[in-house]
């Protein structure tokens, strides 16, 4: 900067965004939430394409397999947003972090449910949209719980692993409520299990946050 420029009166400062929304936006960006929402929209689009172009079965148990994969995939993507690039250092910066974590997890789950429901508009989905919503909720709870152990970046493994098990349970006609992804929409026990897993995952994730390591494994 030259002396001439230094003496020139400074332009009026640009209008600053208030602290709260700015903090939330920075937090969202640090967790790649905008990309995550796009990936969820992609899941909704794939579900729509699968139903439109008959990539899946129309009825019967096999018809639930592909929507279940997409629900677990959406939950895995939500769990990936748990990862913080700042690690331990971020935890000492203020008291808002748990609220931000809660907001992101709940908001992403709601976005996933909404985007997947949007994907099946005008299509005939076996077992209906309620099962899809229940599965997203339950798998997300598992993903959040997994992030407490493995960290955010490997939190996709548990939802996908449990989904693989539930595909077996579905085809083998298991009726336990804890195999909720394969249960019919009116199964109250399945709803209770899915919601309980989600509540536990959300609570622990909010309070403790994901496991953080500066050098992520592998």
């Amino acid at each position, binding site marked *: 900067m030259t002396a001439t420029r230094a003496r020139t009166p400074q332009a009026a400062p640009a209008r600053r965004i208030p602290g709260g929304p700015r903090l939330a936006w920075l937090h969202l960006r640090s967790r790649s939430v905008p*990309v995550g929402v796009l990936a969820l929209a992609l899941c909704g689009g794939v579900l729509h394409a699968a139903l439109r172009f008959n*990539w899946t079965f129309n009825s019967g148990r096999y018809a639930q397999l*592909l929507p279940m994969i997409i629900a677990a*995939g959406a939950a895995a*993507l939500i769990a990936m947003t748990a990862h913080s690039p700042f690690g331990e250092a971020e935890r000492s910066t203020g008291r808002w972090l748990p609220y931000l974590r809660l907001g992101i997890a709940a908001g992403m789950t709601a976005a996933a449910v909404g985007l997947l429901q949007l994907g099946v508009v005008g299509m005939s989905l076996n077992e209906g949209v309620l099962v899809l919503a229940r599965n997203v909720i339950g798998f997300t709870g598992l993903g959040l719980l997994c992030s407490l152990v493995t960290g955010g970046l490997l939190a996709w493994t548990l939802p*996908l*692993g449990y989904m*693989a098990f539930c*595909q077996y349970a579905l085809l*083998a006609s298991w009726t336990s409520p804890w195999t909720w992804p394969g249960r019919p929409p009116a199964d109250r026990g399945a709803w209770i299990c899915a919601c309980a897993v989600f509540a536990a995952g959300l609570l622990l994730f909010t309070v403790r946050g994901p496991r953080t390591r500066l050098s992520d494994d592998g």
Partner: protein
Amino acid sequence: MSALSLHASRPTLPGAARALRLELKRNAVPMLLPLLAAVFYFETVRTADGFPPVWTLRASVIGNHMLFEFSAFAGGLAAWAGSREGRRKTLDLVATTPRAAWVRLSVTLAGTLCWLLFAFLAAVATVYVQTALQATWGGPPLWPVLVGAACVTVVAVIGFTAGVLLPGRFTAPLVAIGTLLLYEVGLRAQLGMSPASGTYAVLSPGGQPPMLDAGVYYRVPPDVSIVQVMLMGGIALALLGVLGLAAGIRYGGLRVALRALAGRGDDVRLRLTAAVLIGCGIAASGTAVALAGTAQPDAAGGWMIPALHSAASDRPIPVDRDCTSAAAGAGARPAFQVCVSQAFSFYLHPVASALTPVAAEIAGLPGAPAGAREIASVTGGQVVMSGITGTPPVFDFTADHVGSVFGEFYGLGLGETVQAWGQVFQQGMLDAFLAGSPPHAGGPAVVPPQFLNGPTPLGAAQQAVENALLAPFGWQPAIAGQAAGQWHGPALTGILAAARRFGALPASARHAWLAAHLSALRAGTITLAQIP
């Protein structure tokens, strides 16, 4: 110990081996092996446990179940490993190492693949050892293992390449989800596949389980497996070549990489090798796709590729049978012999104990079977139904079809008792005996698959007699099986009443009446009222 002797006493590994050892130590796959093992146990081992211990059938879980979970984890974890440099933002740092980027990436990929293939082969060994302890015939098929290993490899290479080119936190789960979706779409396509609708779906490793006796009466031709390995190997080769250009693609995009490929430089041999790999991979995959389009149904109910097919696969395998005999009636009547192929010898005594008492009830009557034997489920590409054939008459049944019931040799159904399981054989034999001139008079009933509706239903009088003959063996008075939907209201009541009347007669009286009226009964000229 001097520094010199310390140095001399520790043999040093070559650079690549040392790098691989480090990679094996730091890889993420071992951390997730417990989860993979749990899913494998619930998804694959339990499914395999539900199948009878026949090698081909048990080996089908590799493609139909094991690859589902393994491919998802292989793709995701390889993407995770591949994205390491980009994720940790160390691209510039590692670019200064003396090794080429391709070598560095290959070591990471090799470490990941070693762990994944180790886990896969350990899982296969679990299924095969369990089968070896139970099976009574045959040996482990190796083609499903090769296809599975190729599938794990190609998915890992796809994931790794995606991780290298698009490093990010969402790459690993997106690759895993994409792999699962591809698997499901392939499964859907293969289950609905027919020669008319195109046969490219044979390239999918997942599909429906084979016939229960697949590999017992005919060899399973390796044609489809060869094409699958060719496709997957081709894709893996091409992507390995792409990895050779990855450094260029990461920094300057595809155009820069292609320009570098054509230009001169120190690593021109490396780039040429990458180009050759890409070319070979595309050629192999293209050939596999073209061959898959020519697939045709084979003699044993599977698919064959004419260009790869060996005529020897269509010839039946000489089958050794295990037999058991028991007196089928009073007096000096010959023993009723029941035979099953050695692959199913664990069913021999349950089948024999179900059939022998019923055979005793009808022994000596015209057309009554002198024995029973299990034959091939498919012959000449067509499905075989059960029936009474030959002279002396023998009740032929297959592992897949007995009477109107399919898949009886899968074993007991959910909540089914051994007695109920055996009654299917009893009913199947009596159906064939009472129908008299079934479609299988000149040999086993061979019907095209689209006409798989089971045998012709019995008439009212025949049904009543069957119920009466089966009643002593715990048969329920209600009409079971396929006839359940055929009779209702007064007709059903009449059948039950006639069955009760006939069943109340002494055995000798029943036998005498049948000897006198069997021809008329088979011809359908006996009414319910005429049954004593």
